[in-house]
């Protein structure tokens, strides 16, 4: 049975970037920053592609909210194999409720069978949008989806999807990373999944994929055209770096280390 899945592609700083707050303390310095698709969203795109491959075809619709720069991340998802890209054009602050509101409207238009988001965006680290969206849609939620097999396993090498759909597509089973172990959660479809790191290892886009993605159309909306209020309810009033840890020392050997731990740090 073909399946239609909605995924996202948030634009974030590359995880290896050195983030520096600007002198005004109200943003970060743009110098030398590289931008990528949020790693958790990339895992979401990969899982959607695997599910579609396993279930005899379907569609993967990728959405991003932001300035025109997000086309780069949308095209990255298209190059991986997503079938359609949707851009919500917005400049300025956004909060989780706005993002979830826009995604809700797109879902109402596209009517996917399920959605896969990242568990958190690695810039804001909020870990909220998926849960808001699931509540507003009235869907089940499987946050922090993972799998039992490692990323070095045979299941991973054969690109088996970790999320399991029942034959009638009425329920989805996910393995979740919870405190103390792994939980198996059975969800009524439609389901909103958020990805954890061990769900899969995303593929590299193929050269033909990259070429094809360049000319694919991108559907455009705005929060206003979707009927979503564009006022942010979260204001960042200050940004600063945390105090640096005071510089430590190198010890020459174990005897010196144990001595420091006993007499100076007093922790053993």
């Amino acid at each position: 049975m073909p399946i239609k899945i909605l995924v996202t592609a948030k634009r974030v700083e590359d995880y290896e970037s050195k983030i520096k707050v600007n002198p005004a303390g109200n943003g970060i310095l743009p110098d030398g920053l590289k931008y990528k698709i949020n790693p958790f969203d990339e895992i979401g795109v990969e899982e959607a592609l695997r599910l579609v491959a396993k279930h005899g075809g379907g569609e993967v619709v990728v959405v991003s909210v932001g300035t025109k720069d997000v086309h780069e991340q949308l095209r990255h998802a298209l190059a991986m194999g997503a079938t359609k890209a949707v851009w919500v054009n917005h400049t300025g602050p956004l909060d989780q409720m706005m993002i979830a509101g826009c995604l809700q409207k797109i879902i109402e238009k596209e009517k996917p069978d399920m959605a896969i988001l990242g568990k958190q965006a690695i810039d804001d680290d909020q870990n909220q949008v998926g849960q808001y969206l699931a509540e507003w849609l009235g869907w089940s939620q499987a946050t922090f989806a993972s799998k039992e097999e490692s990323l070095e396993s045979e299941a991973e090498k054969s690109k088996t999807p970790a999320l399991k759909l029942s034959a009638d597509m009425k329920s989805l089973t996910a393995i979740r990373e919870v405190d103390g172990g792994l939980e198996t959660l059975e969800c009524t479809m439609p389901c909103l999944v958020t990805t954890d790191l061990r769900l899969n290892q995303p593929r590299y886009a193929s050269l033909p994929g990259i070429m094809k993605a360049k000319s694919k159309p991108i559907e455009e909306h705005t929060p206003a055209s979707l009927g979503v209020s564009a006022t942010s309810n979260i204001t960042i009033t200050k940004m600063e770096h945390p105090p640096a840890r005071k510089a430590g020392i190198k010890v020459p050997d174990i005897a010196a280390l144990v001595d420091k731990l006993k007499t100076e740090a007093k922790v053993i």
Partner: protein
Amino acid sequence: MSNVLIVVEAQPDGSLRKATLNAITAGKQIVAKTGGELHAVVLAKDAGALANTVKEYGVKVVHAGSAAHLTNFTADVVAPAGAEIATAIKAEFVGAAATQAGRDVMPRIAARLKAAMASEILGVVGSSGADLQFTRPMWAGAVIATVKLGTAIKCFTARTTEFPMAEKAGAGEVKAFAPAAPAKSLQKVVAFKEVKSARPALTEAKVVVSGGRGTKGDFKEIDALADELGAAVGASRAVCDAGWQPNDLQIGQTGKVVAPQLYIAAGISGAIQHIAGMKGSKTIVAINKDAEAPIFQVADYGLVADLFKALPELRAAVKAAK
């Protein structure tokens, strides 16, 4: 007057999670500034016993919502029940500990309350009322942001390492209520594969010994040192990705955040994503064979050595020093 509601994580065995006591302290800090009452809510099949435990910690009222549909602490059923009690007591702030369960359910409660939310708060700042703000980490803790939530109700999860555990402080009142059953439940826990360990819980341990890719998956010496020190064992992402250790042991931006008295990192390079989960530790020891490894920048004591040689020596020296 702005009331604060703490949503307590119900565990399958009905016991109290220490993280709840950290969240209660965050609630107390808000109440101290805004002058409201501190409430808590326990949602479970049988909420009474846990509510009785929670009431000892300086909480004015603990709402005990018992219902068969709350057998599992899943977001689909916890969110409506949590929002119901928040509305009933006119809570202005609703929060939980930033545990995996808290991270799962709290935004869904916020969504129901049309409330904005700050995740993983580190502190409560500002004077009172509309001025009250939260500090929280961004970009793996490279930046601390001060944020103001503009909705009538405001939600948060509290990072456990940043708020001391609440102490016992006079018994509050327990009020039972019957949460309305949803039309149908959407989620069912069908299995739980527990990471069994005789060691202390990672987030509660006084000492943590962590291994990275440098172990090549051989944790024998990490385990042995941990046992000598009565410590918990942790790991970097590289170790969990390879399947060498359970995912539950990952420390960092996207794993667990720990702040023990002593953190020993062996064969871990010190990527910012790992540092984000352990830099609050009182004393950090790094053992790495590469003198340039970034982990040494946050270590109080660094030893440039092969971990397979250093760890057995350290264990012997710790034993001798006892």
